[in-house]
């Protein structure tokens, strides 16, 4: 069991290593091969046309934050659903399946109240 577990992750490690080599190799090859001539008009945002005024760093709308927030909360919810889904069959085989089912429905139900709140406050509308 022990070697099986770590053996499985060797595959993952190999893939991570290949990914790192691919990206690192591409960046290094770019560094090595590409000609470089810094300065001059290369630093302006547009090489032709009017020079931009002000910064390019605009404030994003708060709406994005609220969607990310909702995603995070329901992501955490999903984390608890995974082990539940894995063991529901086992729990029902020892006769406590209904209890565990209700437990999860209470959990999801409480979080659905939050979704209802978000909808009622109108933060989910994208105008």
């Amino acid at each position, binding site marked *: *069991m*022990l070697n099986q*577990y770590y053996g499985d*992750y060797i595959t993952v490690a190999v893939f991570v290593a290949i990914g790192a080599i691919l990206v690192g190799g591409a960046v290094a090859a770019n560094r090595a091969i590409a000609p470089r001539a810094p300065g001059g008009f290369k630093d302006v945002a547009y090489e032709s046309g009017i020079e931009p005024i002000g910064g390019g*760093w*605009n*404030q*994003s*709308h*708060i709406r*994005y*934050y*609220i969607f*990310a*927030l*909702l*995603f*995070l*909360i329901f*992501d*955490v*919810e*999903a*984390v*608890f659903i*995974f*082990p*539940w889904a*894995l*063991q529901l069959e*086992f*729990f029902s085989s020892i006769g406590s399946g209904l209890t*565990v089912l209700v*437990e999860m429905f*209470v*959990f*999801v139900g*409480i*979080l659905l*109240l*939050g979704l209802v*709140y*978000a909808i009622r*406050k109108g*933060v989910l509308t994208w105008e």
Partner: protein
Amino acid sequence: MTVSIADWFKETANWVFILLAIPTLLGAWRTVTSNNIVRSVLYLVVSLGGAAAMFLSLGAAFVGWTVVLVYIGAVIILFLIGIMITRAPLGMKAELSHASNVRMPAALLSLSMFVLVAWGLIDAFSNTAIEPFEPTPTSDIANLIFSRFVVPFEVVSIVLLAALIGGIALARRDDGGGA
């Protein structure tokens, strides 16, 4: 405890630990010291990824993948959006840190904390037996959550609900006044 360095490097587990510890520590170090706030977030990803791999190497697969799912997948997104909204200052002259007269005592303080805690830990755990880390099946965690930890589990949903409502109420632009 008379072991040579060469013996130490014969063990695969030691290699794995060192290989995972280096990016974890380096990522944490750069998160704290980087002058660019976006880079700081990305180094945090490296550090958390290393920590997740560390959990896997400890045999705690579920915790490790939860770190990937929750931290790297969601919390980092929240940080990046937070940076976009607060228009965090970029570039070398961005004053992200305190002046050096504050930095030095702070660094010394945390260094001394590390030395103290590490010394205590090594003192307390040095004579423990060497144990292989058996993988924990996710089903065991599920059995524990849904039997003994049911009440904390339900309370968690209320905490999440409070966070959700609090976050929306704070971040939402008020209909009336507000700036």
